[in-house]
């Protein structure tokens, strides 16, 4: 009998195949002994310290708070996800178990995918715990809307990609330096590398999940547009498939022709998905209430979200806000009342205050007193208890009062910036006087130095504010038109 003559021995009937139960048991073993849970205490501390604290400094609005998932929580996670995934990818080399694993029937690719899946499932579990805490607290505070899931989906997809890239790096480069370099690279890529690589103004930069902080009222008046999120998902999932398929392609993976063909198909599918996302993002255009990708756009999302405003009274005038601001209505009426009381029944004084959307991309948006009877259209940026970006209750009050005063005196339109009052010196002095009567102190210059223009305005403002309220009201009634036209000088102010 020669080597080639011998007939093949019949296969035993219970020769195993990849049964779901076997794969599940493998996954279970990997889940139980994965290194990722070791990172959880650190990630929990970072979550509390960074994204959660930041989110609690925002107003209780779902889309605003959810923005920390991509801007803060993702960057906090990615370094450790990439590093630990690289660590797990290098396990067989570090532990000298390659021969043992290679001598088994399952392709090494299957074992690797199981290890990667376990690592990524732990990552997802940790991330979702953070989401649950954030969304749970927000649910107890928000008075409108519901938790947005697109940021969660996109963040999970990015974490899966980072995990896959780190795992592949660890598999192909099982060096002790792979984990820290993977961590560094992931953080760099996530935070800024992508945007800088394609140019900040390029539409392709939209594919990076990290974005700027949205306006407070995002998702309140108009629907969140998921076009970019869909493209991001396609891109991230596509690249993840490519990264995983790469593990199964090399000859050394000993994956056999069928698994290698499957890996090749997966890689091509992943590239196609990512390429399609890139192509779609190239057609993106910024519109009034979000970024639109025509092929992915649902026109139903363009319609405003209907709502019934919640109203209160300030100096006898109705002040109506979006239901999401329900809890802040008392503070807003308290802030507006001192100004409204001073200008009630004057020409152009608002008979009503309506909150409108904060969106400076539309010229017709922004603060204005319009209509008959006049209505103050007031975009509200921030809340009294917001502490992000240096805001506090005082800045919120200042914003509301300054906006009303400026619009009333100057007749301006648009977004009132914080800082010195707008208009001519005469107009500025009247604005400052009205604000002082509402509770804002007029800043004085240092004694003894040469008086500046601002000092002269402040002096005139104090003089005007010192008048009895009835006299001041009467003067404004007589001189408002000239004041608004800019014809009143500081010397002409009483």
């Amino acid at each position: 009998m020669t080597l080639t003559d011998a007939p093949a021995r019949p296969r035993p009937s219970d020769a195993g195949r990849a049964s779901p139960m076997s794969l599940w048991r493998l996954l279970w073993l990997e889940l139980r002994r994965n290194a990722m849970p070791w990172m959880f205490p650190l990630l929990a501390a970072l979550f509390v310290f960074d994204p959660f604290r930041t989110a609690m400094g925002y107003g209780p609005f779902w889309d605003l708070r959810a923005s920390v998932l991509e801007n803060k929580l993702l960057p906090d996670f990615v370094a450790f996800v990439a590093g630990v995934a690289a660590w797990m990818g290098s396990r067989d080399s570090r532990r000298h178990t390659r021969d043992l694993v290679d001598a088994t029937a399952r392709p090494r690719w299957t074992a690797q995918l199981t290890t990667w899946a376990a690592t990524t499932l732990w990552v997802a579990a940790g991330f979702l715990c953070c989401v649950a805490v954030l969304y749970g607290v927000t649910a107890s505070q928000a008075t409108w809307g519901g938790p947005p899931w697109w940021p969660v989906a996109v963040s999970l997809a990015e974490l899966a990609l980072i995990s896959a890239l780190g795992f592949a790096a660890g598999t192909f480069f099982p060096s002790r330096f792979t984990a820290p370099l993977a961590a560094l690279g992931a953080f760099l890529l996530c935070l800024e590398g992508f945007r800088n690589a394609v140019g900040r103004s390029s539409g392709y930069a939209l594919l990076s999940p990290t974005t700027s902080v949205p306006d407070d009222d995002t998702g309140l008046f108009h629907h969140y547009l998921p076009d970019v999120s869909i493209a991001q998902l396609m891109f991230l999932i596509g690249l993840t498939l490519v990264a995983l398929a790469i593990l199964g392609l090399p000859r050394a993976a000993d994956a056999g022709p069928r698994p290698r063909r499957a890996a090749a198909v997966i890689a091509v599918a992943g590239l196609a998905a990512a390429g399609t996302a890139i192509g779609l993002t190239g057609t993106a255009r910024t519109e009034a209430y979000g970024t639109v990708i025509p092929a992915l756009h649902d026109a139903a999302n363009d319609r405003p979200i209907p709502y019934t405003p919640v109203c209160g009274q300030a100096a006898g005038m109705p002040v109506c806000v979006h239901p999401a601001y329900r809890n802040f209505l008392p503070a807003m009426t308290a802030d507006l009342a001192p100004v409204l009381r001073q200008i009630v029944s004057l020409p152009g004084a608002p008979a009503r205050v309506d909150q409108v959307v904060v969106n400076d991309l539309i010229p017709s948006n922004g603060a204005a007193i319009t209509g008959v009877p006049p209505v103050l259209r007031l975009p509200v940026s921030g809340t009294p208890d917001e502490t992000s970006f240096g805001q506090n209750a005082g800045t919120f009050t200042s914003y509301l009062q300054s906006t009303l005063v400026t619009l009333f005196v100057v007749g301006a339109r648009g977004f009132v910036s914080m800082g010195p009052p707008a208009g001519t010196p005469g107009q500025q002095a009247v604005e400052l006087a009205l604000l002082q009567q509402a509770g804002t102190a007029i800043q004085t210059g240092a004694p003894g130095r040469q008086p500046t223009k601002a000092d002269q305005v402040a002096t005139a403002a104090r003089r005007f504010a010192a008048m009895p309220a009835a006299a001041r009201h009467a003067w404004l009634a007589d001189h408002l038109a000239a004041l608004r036209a800019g014809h009143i000088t500081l010397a002409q102010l009483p």
Partner: protein
Amino acid sequence: MTAAGLQKPEPRAEASRPRGLLSHSGPRLVRLHLASRRVPGALAALALCALVLRAALIWHWSLGNGNGAQQLPVLIEAGAASIIAVTAQSPFGDPERATGRWLPYLRLGTAVGLTAAAFGLLAAGAAAEHLPGGTLDILRNMAGMTGIGLLLAAVIGGALAWTGPMAYMIVTQFGLIGDWTSPWVWPARPPHDAGAALCAGLVFVAGIVAATVRGARAFREV
């Protein structure tokens, strides 16, 4: 073979005095120690960090202005510190610990030498470009974060010690944006801030002492 041919061994010659690291076997011992810690690979990884820093400066990968512009250099410095921290890991374990008196000196020299090399490489990477904070910042930031990594290596092992500098870097990013003033967040402080330099120096020294005396713990969980 019988015992007839066997003779009593010669009396052992008196043991020669231990030789210093500067003897002819010293450089060989140093070279072998560096090879065991993969120091050539570490230098290559540090050079890569320097190249990334240079690319970031040339192509203006800045994350913003003011303190925001320092976020990227701090990230790269943390990467360098992470690389130094993982070199503390010993592949030998107990057999190496049960040797003579040279191991602490070798550990000390490796840690200090790599920190100096990292500083030199990053400074070279930033040469002739505008680096926010300057080279003093590199030295202070990286030395402090290296200390964190070496301290963590003594506790949980060299293989995962990179998590220390990375976690500290994330805290620092927050501090840079928020203009924190605590000297313990030294990357957020100006380059000539004595308090920050002192804190970074203390942490660096603590890390060096831990690495010298204890070395990296063997982590055998996964």
